[in-house]
């Protein structure tokens, strides 16, 4: 009972902290100075249609590298925590098995499209990676005894991460800054091969995220 009162007090307290923000909140009329520079720079400096992607991959590339690392850490942590055990026999219906194996290929293809077009469309490495992982989730659900090839997954995961770092490193070697995406010619605005290294980086991110999430799902599905 006392605890309930305290919980109520806590929530009420938080509410009263947030209330002034909600009441006084006013949307900005214009972009901040920084965003204006981003919007301009995305076109002029990076030749990338998607400003958000420019921000994520180039301007705030260190964040994204960190983000990939976080996901990687979660995978490593979960792998460390959960040792995979043999699953129980349970066979899904043939209909589900057939359709899911068919569907998963389409989903993977779509995932690849998403991450390779991150600079052009609302999408990117993470979204693409998640789609790829969802394809594997579908396969796992339909066939609980699915044995993934861990060596390949591990290689994809490790190497795509390492290549991401290497791509960043090239910028440093060329003394134009770590994670600079201008190491590759910027190409023609609006094309697939434009925006410098952004699509390349997003592809590595996509592969890495896809393999990592698959690993996580696999580890958790073991029980």
């Amino acid at each position, binding site marked *: 009972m006392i*605890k309930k009162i*305290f*919980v109520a*007090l*806590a*929530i009420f*307290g*938080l509410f009263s*902290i947030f209330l*002034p*923000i909600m009441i*006084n909140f006013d949307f*900005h009329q214009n972009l*901040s*100075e*920084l*965003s204006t*520079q*981003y919007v301009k*720079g995305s076109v002029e*400096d990076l030749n990338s249609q998607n400003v958000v992607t420019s921000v994520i991959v*180039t*301007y*705030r*590339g*260190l*964040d994204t*590298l*960190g*983000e990939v*690392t*976080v996901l*990687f*850490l*979660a995978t*490593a*942590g*979960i*792998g*460390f*925590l959960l040792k995979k055990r043999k699953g129980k026999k349970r066979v899904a219906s043939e209909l589900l098995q057939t359709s899911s194996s068919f569907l998963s290929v389409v989903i993977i293809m779509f995932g690849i499209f998403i991450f390779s077009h991150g600079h052009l469309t609302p999408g990117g490495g993470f979204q693409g990676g998640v789609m790829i992982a969802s394809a594997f989730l579908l396969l796992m659900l339909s066939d609980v005894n699915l044995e993934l090839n861990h060596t390949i997954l*591990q*290689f994809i*995961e*490790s*190497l795509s*991460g*390492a290549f991401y*770092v*290497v791509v960043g*490193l090239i*910028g*440093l070697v060329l003394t*134009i*800054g*770590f*994670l*600079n*995406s*201008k190491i590759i010619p910027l190409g023609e605005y609006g094309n697939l091969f434009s925006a410098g290294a952004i699509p390349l980086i997003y592809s590595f991110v996509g592969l890495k995220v896809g393999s990592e999430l698959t690993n996580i799902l696999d580890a958790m599905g073991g029980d």
Partner: protein
Amino acid sequence: MVNPIFILILSLAAGFLLSIFEKGGRKLSLTVFYGVLSFNVFVIAEWFYRIVFLSEPALIINTAGFTAPLSINLRLGLQESFVLLFTNFTGLMAAIYLFRKFIKSHISSLILYLILIMGINGLVMTRDLFNMFVFMEIVSISTYALTILTKTRDSLTAGFKYMIAGGTASIFFLLGVVFVYYFTGNLNLDFITQSDFSHFGLISLFLLAMAVFIELKPFPANGWALDVYQSVNSGITSVIAVVNSAGIFFVFYKISPLLPVHLLHILGIAGVITFFFSNLMGLKQTNAKRLLGYSSIGQIGLLVASLSFTIHYQTSLIYLIVGGFFVNHLIAKAGLFWLTGIVEKENLKDWGVLKNNKSLLILFGVLLFALSGLPPFPGFWAKWEFIKILTQTKMFWVVGTILLGSLFEIIFLFRWFTIAVKGDIDSNEKEIPFEFSKLFPIALFSGIILLISVAIMKSYYDFTLIQLLPIIAVLGVYLLDFIPSKIKGFLSLIVVGIYGYYLYPFESNLQLFFGIIFIVGSAINIIGTLNRKNLSQGFYGFLLMMIFSFGNLIIAKTYLEFFLAWEFMTISSFVLILRGNKAQMASLMYMIFSTAGAYLMMVGFSYAPALNSNSVLINSIANVQLPVLSIILLAIGFMIKSGSFGVHIWLPEAHAEAESDVSPFISAILLKAGVFGLLMIGISYIKNTPSFDVFYFVGWFGVITALVGAFLASFQEDAKRLLAYSSMSQVGYIVASIAILSHLGWLSAMYLSFNHMMFKSALFIAIAGVYYRTHTRTMYEMGGLIKKMPLSYITVLISIIAVSGVPPLSGFGAKWLIYSSFIEKGWYFQAGVLFFSSGVSFLYLYRLIHTIFLGQLKYEHQDIKEAPIWFIIPQYIFMAGIMAISMNPNLIIQPLNSIVGHYFQSAILIDGYNITSSLGNWNGNLVMMVTMGVFIVPLLFLKLYNGKTQKVEQFNIVYAAERPESPQTTHIAHNMYAHYRKALGGWGKPRIWNFWHEATEWSHSFGDFFRHIYTGNGQTYILHIILYIVVIYIILGV
């Protein structure tokens, strides 16, 4: 010169690829792992060197080919490189510590560890708020996962609680960051200033600050952290408590310039509260790692407080205070956590096993002394300067809370230490296994913290070698410890001689007087230690440390030098007392009271006005008007050391339980340090008399101490306790005479000090000889030793005559002077009480000589011999001294007269052997002659006419044909003054002892009460966090 961004790059690449390297075997991955960690240390060390010694400017690293704020930038300046050097190095050492674990565990643990260290580097260097959030999550997630390096249910539970608490904090951090962006349009710390925020916009900074603050584990929103500290593998715990805390603290440091002053102050006070409560709750802990957890949380609170309150002072001071607390706490804590992993004893009670492992014990001692904030460790300097700032800005509540918290910390840390040195151990206890990889980091860290300590003393304070001498003594003798103790003893004697010669000539004769008491007195007492048989490891180191600190006390030129010598004296005497067989409790009590006294003195000195001359303190303080508060605090501090009534309970324990050749140092010499201190205040007092007459009360305390000490001495069965209480009583006389503040008063105080030094040394050494032969200190178990140990008997006889103040010996002069001075001052009532207590002292003096030496010899003492020669020599040196000043008091009165004449108009006239005061005259030589005559005539008469005496059996008592089981207890010597005790009625109860006992019980109960808020339920911990944020918000009143 490697770009520090390579630390991030290489760690990440290695982290990503480690699972592939693993295919080539664990050796390969371990090589890569340790290689990268060492590379990090190397890179940062080079930058640190460049920035500090080559004065290179801070390095700014832009990423992505754009400058900030467009892109994220990193900064590596002095502060960053310092923190990173420290964290990377600790990270490497913890990894070495975990070497055996890492050989076997899953490869993921290496990856997680590597990236954890990488995350800290990013966290410290980045200037972008959101990037900080990302690195913070990197650090958190790898830490969460590493909590289960040793997977137990407890570590899993703790890890889960840690995750939900950390997750909650990170939600607030994220909110704070985006609202900072909303209000300022920027995320880069270099482009945001406090003025960018409207009043309403401060909410974003509030959320940000609270999130970081929660991660710093403030009381009471920190239950999760305690569970983690308790249950997780020691190596990882050290990383969490040290590396992570350092990183997060640095985040707090980075955002602190943005925070409004009142928020910063509130957080500072919250830090102080955390420090206080963690240490209070630590009192009840029995689990070693959880105790360290409490201490850790407390220290981080202190660190936050020190930053919040000093942020507007000059940089060098901030570096000393915040940097000092930082380095001190984190190094000591890492080392201690590692030690818990080696000792593998959860319960503090079982730490007695350390006794059998000298090297571990020494490391434990170094780290623990450092953690307690004792000199020479960095925490001491930080605390001194911090308290000074706080006192000068009159934040007395904060000062009091911090010092009380520190005292609690001293209590539980030293309780732990005394257990480790003296605790019981199971006989079938296994030896602690030796693992180089685990021991190496601890040894290295202990060495580093000593080096840093010396560096601070040399470079910041510009101390000379002489101030370092006490430490050098301990370290030097430690290296020579293989030499037999007798040779070490002789060497010590020579060293003390050289030291004394070096100190001579003094600026003031008062110094010379105390120099004789401290240095010459100690030197003679060293002879008594030559009787030691085995190696006596460590003994002479600490003995020399104590003697050097005595000397440094009298030549101190600043408050700090004085206080430093004082603390060194406390440390060394504590260790010496602890060497006694049953001294666990006694030494702990001594340490607690001494520390409390030291803290009062610290505040007293901090509040005192600055000195304006370069003379020694005892001279220059004459020109300083000490505030009343300073005088009160300093007087209490000195009176604790001299065992005044009310704070005396440590004294009998410490003096009695110390080894028997140590007791004379403690009782006859150490107490005079308090006397010296009181005289020092007195010198300022007489020239600049304060509005409130503190010394009137000091005088009363002295008088009561003299009386109570005499009564308590009379009721003791233990010879050393009797002598200890006698010292208490005698120092009471001295304190009272100082408080008179007149020529006669000071003359008698100093005369008595000198006299007491001699007879109390002689008595303690004599009793040491008796104990050496009879193996007992209980007096009724002895008797009739006059025939077996005549030389010791003569010493005791002469000494007690000297104590009691009957003619013809020196004590008579002392008493004559004291009563004269009291009557002259008009303190008649006090004089009466002193006179009465002189009478009481006959009781214990008679008991001492009667029970031990007179009466009949016990059967088991038939074959004992005279005390060893090494005990006899110093006794007779002192006897010669007593006889000399008894025969010719001018030897001492004349010089004292001139010393005191420096401060007061002389009130006595010396004419040949005759000394005249306003009340009468005293001719010591004549008194001696007359008394001798009076003594010799009856003696000859008795010898001639009373030759036939009948001897009676002592224990021929039979009750109804039944012999009592323990015949000694039926003897008069047992419970000798029971009737007087009865006569005292209710006054005889140990009220003071009960008072302190109750105080201890209460503080422990409070600690126990408060720690129950940590219910163990993860959900409650979240509730604490949310409520904490709400409460701070309400206090802030935004």
